[in-house]
């Protein structure tokens, strides 16, 4: 067991390393002019610019830069952001913004799982019935139409209809509801459609036929055999989803003006805020990989057939 954990740890470290190096190098491919705002670029002369770039640490060759970065991380110093609240430590920024994303993300996740799984079960139980049809229509709309569109329209119509605030206010709980629900909509569709698919697959298996022949009522078979077994493949995604709520939803946080982590990454890239981008990518990669690992552990705990030592590599 221990050797398995160590092996996975090693593999994960390599993956994280490759991810961070790739992003690191891609960032260094950006034009140096991007480090300045337009005015600064125009107003500063050559030597001032070079001095500034040197102070940022981007004039050295990539290897040196990377070593510096890695060393810093090892010591707990994740660098200072170039763009956000000038020169704030990255950690401070994350600590400030993460709670918003986490709260909304986790609340939406609970909603997604609760409603989504329930929907999935009902759709599978009454396959091809009315509920199944409506469920499928819902899922189709959510997954086929770009989310920006229906998120935007929901914001417009619902706030107009119910007189709710259009954006997020920390002191007005009523403004928290719509973003949470909107955030959950995709998750609900995902859980519903996948659980339904897995349940339908399970229903066709031989052991269900045998259970029927033994005289077990269909409702009981669905509940105690089909549902239980169908949830198993879904469980492996659960840790990942929980851990990555910290990343926040760019769309939701943008249209509801939530000061979370969502827009951070994109803006950081546009402003070529290397320390921030690197730190965030490192954070998300680590969380993602830890999530996968926990997911595999969870699967092994739930499925007696899986023996960890010979576990499959890569995610399904």
């Amino acid at each position, binding site marked *: 067991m221990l050797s398995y954990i160590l092996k996975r740890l090693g593999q994960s470290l*390599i*993956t*994280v390393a*490759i*991810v961070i190096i*790739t*992003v690191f190098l*891609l*960032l260094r*491919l*950006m034009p140096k002019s*991007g480090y300045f705002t337009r005015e600064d670029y125009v107003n500063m002369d050559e030597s001032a610019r070079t001095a500034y770039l040197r102070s940022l640490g981007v004039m050295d060759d990539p290897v040196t830069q990377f070593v510096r970065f890695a060393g810093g991380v090892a010591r707990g110093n994740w660098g200072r952001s170039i763009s956000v609240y000038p020169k704030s430590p990255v950690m401070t920024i994350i600590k400030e913004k993460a709670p918003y994303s986490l709260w909304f993300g986790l609340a939406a996740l609970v909603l997604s799982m609760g409603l989504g799984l329930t929907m999935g079960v009902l759709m599978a139980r009454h396959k091809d019935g009315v509920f199944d049809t409506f469920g499928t229509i819902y899922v*189709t*709309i959510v*997954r*086929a*139409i*770009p*989310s*920006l*569109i229906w998120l*935007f329209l929901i914001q*417009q119509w619902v706030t107009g209809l119910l007189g709710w605030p259009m954006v997020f206010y920390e002191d007005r709980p009523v403004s928290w509801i719509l973003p949470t629900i909107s955030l959950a909509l995709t998750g609900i569709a995902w859980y519903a459609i996948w659980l339904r698919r897995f349940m339908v697959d399970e229903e*066709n298996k031989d052991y269900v036929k045998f259970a029927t022949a033994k005289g077990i009522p269909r409702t009981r078979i669905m509940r105690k055999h089909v549902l239980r077994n169908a949830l198993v493949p879904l469980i492996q995604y659960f840790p990942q989803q929980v851990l990555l709520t910290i*990343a926040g939803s*760019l*769309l939701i946080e*943008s249209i509801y003006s939530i000061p979370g982590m969502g827009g951070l*990454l*994109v803006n950081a*890239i*546009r402003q070529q805020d290397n320390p921030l*981008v690197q730190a965030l*990518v490192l954070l*998300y*990669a680590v969380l*993602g*990989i830890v999530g996968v690992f926990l997911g595999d552990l969870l699967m092994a705990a739930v499925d007696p057939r899986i023996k960890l030592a010979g576990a499959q*590599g*890569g*995610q399904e």
Partner: protein
Amino acid sequence: MKREIPMVSDELFRPAPFNESEAELTGYARYSYWRSTFRTFLKSPVSIALLALIFVLTLFAFAYPVLSKTDPNAVALDTSRWNIKPGSEGGIFGTDGLGRDIWARTWYGTRTSLLLGFVIALFDVGIGMIAGALWGYVKRIDRIMTELYNVLNNIPQTVFLVLLAYIMRPGFWTIVVALCSTGWISIARFVRNKVMSIRDAEYNIASRCLATPLPRIIQKNVLPYLVSILIMEAALTIPYSIGAEVFLGFIGLGLPVEAVSLGNLVNQGKNTFMLYPYQLTWPTVVLAAITISFYIVGNRFADASDPRNHV
């Protein structure tokens, strides 16, 4: 239980001549994979209707720019031509904030977005299939490919898209490269799984034992699976790429603002929604029609190509 004897004439009680070839007539229904697939798919009127819709919309999107004289980029200098509601004056979909005809813009935009989607589907599926087939067949590269898969999966999609868009200047091919560079691996993995399960499937081992030539094994046993994956993935890539284009437009890294695409139309219409809702709703209706149709048709085709559903 029937014990009554039917009326038969006595002289029939003679031995009958034995015809060995007659004994061999099996006549179990001939099963053709493709015929069954299309039959199952076309069984539903919804599938047929949406397939027809796809054809109509695609045809129109490509035919309109050729046949119509309206210029989607023509800005009206006369401000009274700005923001006119749909109707006899404004044109079928109305005009936008610069007096441009939204009906024309919608169809030019659809053409661009569809083209984008087809190109992405082509590269994604093309590269994905070849890579996946090799990955599944050649055991030695499995470790590297799996590692590659893990890495690509763990680089946040947004980062990659944004970085590439930044390095390469926003544009048609930038989006293609950005989406394809991460998209192909999922298809490759899917294909790899299928290839692996097929390669080791007993009926293929049996075929090899019977000295069935490799091209025939591939043609009859492997290709049908892969082609159906192809079609399904291609169909599902269209809504995905349109969605990505809309998202990129939102964060300012989509196609150039001057370009006419559904993504740009949506983002522009969003900004003027409060005052002129029709500028968003009509392009959205067309966009939704396309994405929903492709999505449903793609999924139904996937279901139809599963032999277990060929009943």
